[in-house]
């Protein structure tokens, strides 16, 4: 398996008083509150999530202490050092100093969830074999006391051989100051030379490492014996002889698979520690607890899942409308004002039709996208998103995957890029690639603008019962994406990626009340990232498209002959015809007309074809391109883009945007892969060009085919 390139996040925007003197790794189980602690300690803004995958990138930041500073490296959440998934291997490799260009950490800050010390202590005992200065942070102490758990911190510290233990409240931040004071001296901490959970293994490995020489650390020997690191496993057999190593294994593991033996040994010890240090008061059944259990039951849970999805889509479409109206009118006011100030010329057209119309047509979708993100973040932070893996495992199994593919696919409703990265938690490579290729089918936020535009323009805004027809069509498009993704997974898993049935195991976090501040930071972060893309890629493409549409200028003395004029001829008709003629002979028009025959069977004219072509690097620009194309050449007016689309005609006067054509266009957008960022991510994550090329060809192909069938079939009636 290949090592992933690390991504360094520049430490900026914080006043650095001290230079970091050492690198400390922040490590712990998934959902242990690690990322929240990282944010609190570094003050760095960073996306955190309740589900595995999001913190897969190596995030680092500087912790400013009273007298010094530390470089803190946030690692993906793991349960053990066995390294079964890519995610775990990254964490393990960084911790063990095996990632080129990254220093071996000088100390470990181990995060343990106070409500889950069982799994936390297991990982800690494995980490102690590294013999690095180690400190324990107990998080979620509020949740623990709410659950009736009380922990004797002194007894715990004693049981761990004197390793300092610091309880910290994730909600109030209580205990953080004490932790920061202690971090000043983290590199001075001495850990017990032989961890208490499995002395026999530790001592054997210790003796062997001394015997084998300086290049062998104790942890290397342990991983070789446990067969969790192929390189060391092979080298150890070479050095000591196969029979000797086999004998050692038989003595230590008694014929069991080594990781099973390790789990038995260490958890046996952990159980004893918990019995000594933790008291769990009997829980009385509160109404809220009973309700929670009810929402975990299969049928209510499934109904709840679909109700939540429906609520999200309705909210995205109805709550955002007032904000979008404000942005829309502000944009046209500004454009009109600029044209009024500068007169009708190249500069005013550039500013009003290129810059403002282009960027505005993307910003207008910010309210919808923020509402969508808000819901996704809330679902993540309550722990609900992970529950959906459990609910949906059966569905995923029917296409040859497991519930572990659900979280990446659900993330893909916001953006395919983090979704593809979140597939690193899937252990099997075939399952992972099938998930990677299915994820881009999910309706990402970049598809929303074109959906919103076409639905608002062509689907009647009427109610069906308590539902809104536009909302229902949007829901249908989401379903179409899901079907495309699941169908693709099934196809791949029964052909090219056929393999053994995947296992499904997942630790399910309990429901937690989201922390308002954390939710706000995440929402701000994701909104900022969306705007940053709008402000860079989309802005550049909008300007480029404006240029292609504005030049070369038409000779104004020439009477437009290519456009059929219909009587009676008024001044507005002449202006519109002139604008259309200018567009038609512009560079973009020429490109569009060259490519138009390809899309003619779908009912698209050259303008739609040009917009679609311009959208291949980033699909969200399509609306910006259409905005530019339909606004260029016309005076600043109050017509919205959707009205212009409705008014668009073929040269023979027939309507371009007929219902079959619009539905076909929507299907094309639901399935087509128009996103350079997604392709680049697939390339990086699969480490080959084969899969991104396949994904692009396949998705574009079925998008085209879907649009073709719908338009041709729809036009028969």
């Amino acid at each position, binding site marked *: 398996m290949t090592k992933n390139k690390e991504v360094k996040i520049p430490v900026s925007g914080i006043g650095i008083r001290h230079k970091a003197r050492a690198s400390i790794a922040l490590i712990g189980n998934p959902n242990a509150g690690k990322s929240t602690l990282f944010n609190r300690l570094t003050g760095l803004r960073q996306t955190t999530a309740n589900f595995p995958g999001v913190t897969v990138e190596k995030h680092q930041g500087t912790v400013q202490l009273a007298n010094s500073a530390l470089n803190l490296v946030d690692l993906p959440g793991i*349960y*053990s050092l*066995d390294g*079964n998934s890519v995610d775990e291997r990254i964490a393990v490799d960084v911790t063990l100093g095996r990632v080129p260009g990254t220093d071996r950490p000088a100390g470990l800050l181990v995060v343990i969830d106070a*409500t*889950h010390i*069982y*799994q936390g202590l*297991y990982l800690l005992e494995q980490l102690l074999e590294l013999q690095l200065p180690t400190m324990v942070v107990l998080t979620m102490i509020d949740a623990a006391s709410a*659950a009736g*758990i009380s922990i004797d911190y002194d007894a715990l510290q004693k049981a761990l051989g004197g390793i300092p233990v610091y309880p910290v409240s994730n909600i109030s931040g209580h205990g953080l100051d004490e932790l920061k004071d202690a971090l000043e001296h983290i590199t001075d901490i001495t850990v017990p030379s032989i961890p208490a959970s499995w002395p026999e293994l530790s001592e054997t490995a210790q003796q062997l490492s001394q015997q084998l020489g300086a290049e062998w650390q104790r942890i290397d020997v342990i991983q070789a014996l446990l067969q969790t690191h192929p390189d060391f496993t092979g080298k150890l057999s070479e050095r000591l002889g196969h029979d000797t190593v086999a004998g050692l294994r038989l003595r230590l593991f008694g014929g*069991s*698979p080594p*990781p*099973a033996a390790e*789990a*038995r040994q260490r*958890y*046996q010890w*952990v*159980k004893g520690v*918990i019995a000594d240090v933790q008291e*769990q008061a009997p829980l009385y059944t509160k109404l809220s607890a009973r309700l929670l259990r009810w929402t*975990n*039951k*299969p*049928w209510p849970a*499934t109904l709840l899942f679909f109700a939540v999805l429906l609520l999200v889509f309705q909210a995205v479409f109805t709550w955002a409308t007032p904000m979008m109206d404000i942005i829309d009118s502000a944009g046209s006011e500004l454009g009109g004002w600029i044209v009024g100030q500068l007169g009708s010329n190249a500069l005013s057209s550039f500013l009003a039709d290129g810059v403002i119309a282009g960027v505005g047509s993307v910003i207008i979708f910010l309210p919808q996208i923020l509402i969508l993100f808000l819901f996704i973040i809330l679902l993540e932070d309550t722990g609900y998103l992970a529950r959906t*893996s*459990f*609910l949906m*495992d*059966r569905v995923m199994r029917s296409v040859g995957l*497991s*519930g572990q593919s659900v979280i990446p696919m659900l993330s893909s409703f916001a953006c395919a890029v983090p979704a593809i990265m979140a597939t690193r938690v899937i252990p099997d490579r075939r399952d992972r690639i099938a998930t990677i290729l299915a994820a881009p089918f999910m309706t990402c936020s970049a598809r929303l603008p074109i959906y919103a535009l076409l639905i608002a323009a062509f689907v009647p805004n009427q109610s069906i019962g308590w539902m809104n027809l536009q909302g229902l069509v949007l829901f249908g498009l989401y379903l179409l994406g899901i079907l495309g993704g699941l169908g693709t997974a099934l196809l791949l898993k029964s052909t090219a990626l056929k393999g053994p*049935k995947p*296992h*499904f*195991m*997942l*630790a*399910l*976090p*309990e429901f937690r009340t989201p922390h308002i501040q954390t939710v706000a930071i995440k929402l701000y972060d994701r909104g900022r990232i969306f705007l940053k893309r709008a402000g860079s890629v989309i802005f550049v493409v909008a300007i480029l498209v404006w240029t292609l549409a504005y030049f070369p200028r038409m000779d104004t003395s020439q009477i437009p002959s290519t456009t059929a004029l219909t009587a009676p001829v008024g001044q507005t008709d002449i202006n519109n015809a002139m604008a259309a003629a200018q567009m038609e002979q512009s560079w973009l028009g020429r490109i569009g007309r060259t490519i138009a025959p390809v899309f003619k069977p779908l009912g698209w004219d050259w303008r739609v074809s040009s917009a679609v072509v311009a959208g291949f690097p980033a699909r969200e620009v399509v609306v910006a391109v259409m905005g530019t194309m339909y606004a260029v050449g016309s005076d600043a007016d109050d017509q919205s883009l959707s009205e212009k689309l409705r008014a668009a005609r073929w040269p023979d006067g027939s309507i371009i945007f007929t219902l079959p054509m619009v539905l076909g266009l929507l299907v094309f957008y639901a399935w087509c892969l128009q996103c350079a960022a997604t392709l680049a991510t697939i390339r990086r994550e699969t480490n080959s060009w084969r899969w991104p090329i396949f994904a692009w060809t396949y998705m574009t192909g079925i998008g085209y085919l879907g649009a073709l069938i719908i338009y041709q079939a729809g036009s028969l009636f």
Partner: protein
Amino acid sequence: MTLADLNPGESAKLDEIDTRDPGVIRLMILGMVEDITVSMENIAIGGDPLEVGFFGSSVSLRKEQARHFKVSLVTAGD
């Protein structure tokens, strides 16, 4: 009886684990080892996957792996 035979609400002690299935070893790494008591929290629609609880944690797994855990009943369901 195996873990796959438990009804929701029932608790059982893990007696013997067949470690030949790699999926079972992953579950052991999550803490499902001999002599601990687990409770059957939920069974999904169609009888699979299962959700079991132990030491305050919840883990979901498929019946196929659950069959490799021999158990003895501790308490009946509520």
